[in-house]
């Protein structure tokens, strides 16, 4: 149902580098769990609306007023690498 190749692809989408030994055990775990969730296929859901959220809330707006927010220096203080008032990341283009 799910192959090691699928697991490698999903790991790529998830931005997680997996070691070979992890691939094997995760493939088995995911296979078991996906087999278990197959039981949902027994239900007729053709005319059922999805519930992404239980509250009758939508488009929660607020007044556009100016209030104090997190200072740039505070946000940068907890980052691993910063440069000239910005977060710093490794080179994107080689």
């Amino acid at each position: 149902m799910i192959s090691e190749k699928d697991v490698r692809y999903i790991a790529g989408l998830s931005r997680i580098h997996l070691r070979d030994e992890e691939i094997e055990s995760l493939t088995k775990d995911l296979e078991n769990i996906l087999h278990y969730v197959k039981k949902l296929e027994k239900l007729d859901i053709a005319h059922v609306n999805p519930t992404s959220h239980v509250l009758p809330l939508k488009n929660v707006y607020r007044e556009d007023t100016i209030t104090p927010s997190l200072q740039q220096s505070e946000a940068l203080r907890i980052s691993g690498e910063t440069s000239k008032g910005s977060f710093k990341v490794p080179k994107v283009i080689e």
Partner: protein
Amino acid sequence: MKLNELTAHEILTLIKAKKTSADEIYDAVLGRIDQCDKDVRAYVRLRGAQMDSDGANGNASQPLPIAIKDNICIRDVETTCCSRILTGFKPPYDATIIAKLKNAGVPIAGQTNMDEFAFGSSTENSCHGPTRNPWNLACVPGGSSGGSAAAVAAHEAIWAIGSDTGGSIRQPASFCGVVGLKPTYGRVSRYGLIAFASSLDQIGPITKDVTDAAILLNIIAGYDPKDSTSVDLPVPDYTRALINDVKGLTIGIPKEYFVEGIDPEVNAAMMSSIEVLKKCGALFKEVSLPHTEYAVATYYLVATAEASSNLARYDGVQYGLRLQPSQVRKTALMDMYEETRDIGFGREAKRRIMLGTYALSSGYYDDYYLRGLKVRTLIKNDFDQVFTQCDAILTPTAPTTAFKIGEKTNDPLAMYLSDIYTISVNLSGVPAVSVPCGFSREGLPIGLQIITKPFDEETLFRLAYTYEQNTDWHKRKAELKTYAKVK
């Protein structure tokens, strides 16, 4: 009686009568932590002497030390969800409930152990190792708020805060013989709660009795513009709902909850609980929640999909762990992301991120995630339907008592199934509480779950309080010993 063994309301009475002081209470709690946390391992970080400075202007008006689950942000105090990926993260702000506790003058005793990012039912998936169950140190305390429940059961805190996405307050409360309440979705602000599954997460109290749960919910409940899912409804004084009378209330017993897999001792405790409430005047009827058997499968699609999205933020850039790639495989940036997330996340976190990413990925979205959302509607409709026939639903909190450390770690599915009675409540957004309702022959606590309509925490408190006033399970004390299981 030692001060740390008292409930919050008992201590408040002593303070009013000037029979104790903040210092005496702190000494009792800190002394207990010193004495037994090396065995229980409920805490991952302690405030120690700094505890006193947490209250309003450093003057705690309610000197009742509280334990906080390690996924709720405390300004300038390391908060990590017991994950390596948040190592060193000191939030630059307080979660709304932390601000409320500070304003109420409640000091923070420390931060408690949990399954990494709340992914688990045993507190074994923590980067700090497992917490032990105070009733038998060879057993798990439940999870994911296992540290908070164990701290309260071992009297290492007067009360505690947990979070509940699929049972993470109620199941550990059940395993540790304490009271655990998941309020209605929207009742308590999640601002500053590090997100797991945003449509399910809710913060709530873990306490020694029902009265303390009402006092604590009074402090933390209410609308917060910083959490757009918190609901702008008036918050009643929940202590006024502590009424020892359930005459005229109708309680539904879902027939689907008393089938295969339930421990006979749990079943027997449930039957006696029903008798207690019957004697108090409650009426019982059998009801049906026909989609119960699909709840765990639905939850593991919806919750993991949301988790994979929420955990995408841990990229090594803005905060937390950042690793330099050991070798260049893709680009330096991509390698940094992948290396950081490989080392930063534990096994269960990786499993859930992968499952959620799969359920959301192109070609599988309709079959998995969307199907999960649709079945969620059926599960929620079941509750809506049942609540037209009764005021509350009574179930066990968990199908078994606490299991042994290591017993389920190699079988993720078996672990997921220990949440079978609690998960539907999160999918439906309704409130529920677990209260102690008995002990197994091995001396492990059993929990009773009461569920009510959305925003009807008052009926929840009335039922739980009446049950508690007519039983004495909540008065037993854990002995912090290791027992070999009889079975």
